[in-house]
């Protein structure tokens, strides 16, 4: 009797979980199906439907065919731009965040909580509010309309998040460890490289995933501070979809969205296991 009720509750749990999964995956399914339907098929039928003819050409058009004004090179060059911004900005912001988090958590000094507070305050500032200050900064250092300017923006803005996360992770490291190393004569950076960094992979994975996703998906700064062929992939995607006075190219759009999402998806698949582990590492202690 008890056995049977156990099985019944199991089935119920699976059913509920499957239902929730289906609800979450439905939009993705629509995008995947539409990426394989021709524009005409979607316009003449409905947004939701099974492809009648498999329009694989959507992927080719999305990758190297569609035009953004005078340039007809598809999503490809913009993917490269996004990589050129996202990879360095992710590395720099993660590394600097780790150093800053380490400094405010393990090297107590006068005003450290204030500095920490001010840095994390950056998380609460709306993007739009920072647009004008960044314009002035980029103008004055001559980086407006360059990818380097975007790297700088994302590195600095990322610091709020990376510092917060690394600091919360590092406060759990026993102070004795640091003290012992200092007695042995190790300085700030030697301790960081030799002790802190080897202990950090779980939290670094979290910040890398987070930063990579955010920077890759960012649109406002990308479109404001670059022009023409320098623009990131989000700009190209919006260019493909923002025509009010045109029939939306759902097929090509869907294919482009899927291609553009692949790098972030890959990062999640590779690092997802560590993501939750890193997030909860500090919490358990």
């Amino acid at each position, binding site marked *: 009797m008890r056995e049977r009720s156990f099985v019944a509750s199991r089935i119920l749990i699976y059913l509920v979980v499957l239902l929730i999964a289906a609800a979450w995956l439905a939009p993705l399914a629509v995008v995947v199906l539409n990426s394989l339907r021709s524009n005409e098929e979607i316009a003449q039928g409905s947004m939701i439907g099974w492809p009648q003819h498999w329009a694989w050409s959507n992927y080719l058009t999305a990758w190297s065919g569609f035009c953004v004004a005078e340039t007809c090179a598809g999503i490809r060059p913009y993917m490269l731009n996004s990589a050129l911004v996202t990879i360095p900005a992710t590395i720099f912001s993660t590394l600097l965040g780790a150093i800053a988090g380490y400094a405010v958590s393990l090297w107590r000094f006068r005003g450290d909580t204030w500095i920490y507070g001010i840095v994390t305050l950056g998380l609460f500032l709306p993007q739009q509010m920072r647009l004008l200050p960044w314009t002035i900064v980029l103008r004055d250092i001559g980086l*407006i309309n360059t990818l380097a300017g975007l790297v700088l923006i994302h590195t600095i803005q990322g610091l709020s998040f990376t510092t917060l996360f690394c600091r919360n992770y590092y406060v759990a490291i026993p102070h004795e460890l640091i003290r012992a190393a200092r007695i042995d004569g190790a300085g700030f950076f030697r301790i960081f490289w030799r002790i802190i960094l080897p202990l950090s992979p779980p939290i670094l994975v979290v910040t890398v995933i987070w930063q990579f996703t955010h920077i890759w998906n960012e649109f406002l700064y990308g479109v404001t501070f670059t022009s023409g062929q320098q623009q990131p992939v989000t700009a190209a995607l919006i260019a493909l979809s*923002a025509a009010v006075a045109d029939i939306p190219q759902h097929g090509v759009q869907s294919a482009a969205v899927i291609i553009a999402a692949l790098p972030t998806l890959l990062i999640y698949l590779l690092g997802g296991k560590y993501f939750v582990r890193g997030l909860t590492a500090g919490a358990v202690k």
Partner: protein
Amino acid sequence: MPITTTRRRLLAGSAAALALPAFARAQGAVKPRLTAISQWSAGSDGAAITALGKKFEEKGGVWQHSPVPGFTTEMMNKLRAQIMAGDPPACSQLKGPEIAAWSKIAPTVDLDAVVAAAGYEKVVAPDLAKLHKPAGKWIALPLQIYSTNMLFLSKRAMDKAKADKIPVTWADFNDLAEKMKAGGVASPIANGGTRPDDGQKFEAALAGISPLAYRAAIMNLEKKALEGPEIKAAFAQVRKIADWMDPNVGAQHFSTNLKRFVDGNMGMMIMGGWAQGVLRNAGFKFEDFLIAPGPSDNGKPVFLLNADAFIFWQRKEADLQAGQTLMAQLVMDPAIQTMYSQITGSIPVRTDVDLSGEGWSEGQRTTSAALKSAIASNQALLSMAHNMAQENGMTAAMIDVITEYVKDKTIKPGQAATRLAEAVEGAR
């Protein structure tokens, strides 16, 4: 939105005065070059501006266009950044009252001489001309026109209603909608669910009921007109329209329902002239639908103007100045306007372009005739829903009220009218 200070205006004014002689000198033997930013990056808009660029190059110019993907906000962010960086584009897309607002932020080029040489002023709708010379001098040029209150009728829905007459007044329109409903058309009014879509229904209603009240209330923001009976009547008409719409359409692009419209499950659509191109690109035929000017109670067409334009920013470089002159000449050229409108499905700004030839659709001819007639009877008005009548902030305040009214059927027309007047007061 741009906040302008008197100091800035002073600076802009003096910079303009200093730069004038430089502009006059610039007509020498340099190779014209043009830096331009616009939001036209894809589809027919992208194709049209690319074609314009080719013409610019054919005339010996260097064309440097940077599309800013997205909508007006993104374009303006980019423009603001470029102006602040001291590197404004030689010309940029900008339309409606934003032209006046932005002209106070940075110095613009005086185009009066080029416009006079082209004899342009005589062939442009007066209200439109006013927008492009906010301080009495031409600083921007309109490029193409759409009417936002065209009436699209589904042939199959007409058959179901056993009707063949195109409605002229709102009474005709309501009659036809009733007949469609009785004939089995599920939603006599085709709708999307975006904010401009709702705004278009209101502006079409008010302008059709009284063009005078529209001009006074929406374009001139006169308090008396805003509280007048016409506004209430317009809201009452919008309620009828809303009752005939499919309530299950969320915030969707109007094109999502084109199939239902053509099939006769939706009957009539109030949309900009661009819907012709959208219908055609979706694979539908002109036999599937009819197109006419929106309902007008006095029988003469009312034309709600939506015009894209370029504003020209002052640059010191001689080649950019020459490029600006060349661009201005091209934009005003009847042949270029013909080429541009034939790609996008709009109509030319010049009222003297002949649309009888090949390459023009029946819908474009109807639109152009409606514009001419509307100008003659002083019924060519500026669209509110598409940011032509007011600056963005004011438009947003008005559309908030309209959209809420369309979606919430417990609000009475009288209440909506009061709310609209209050919203305008608040946004002033």
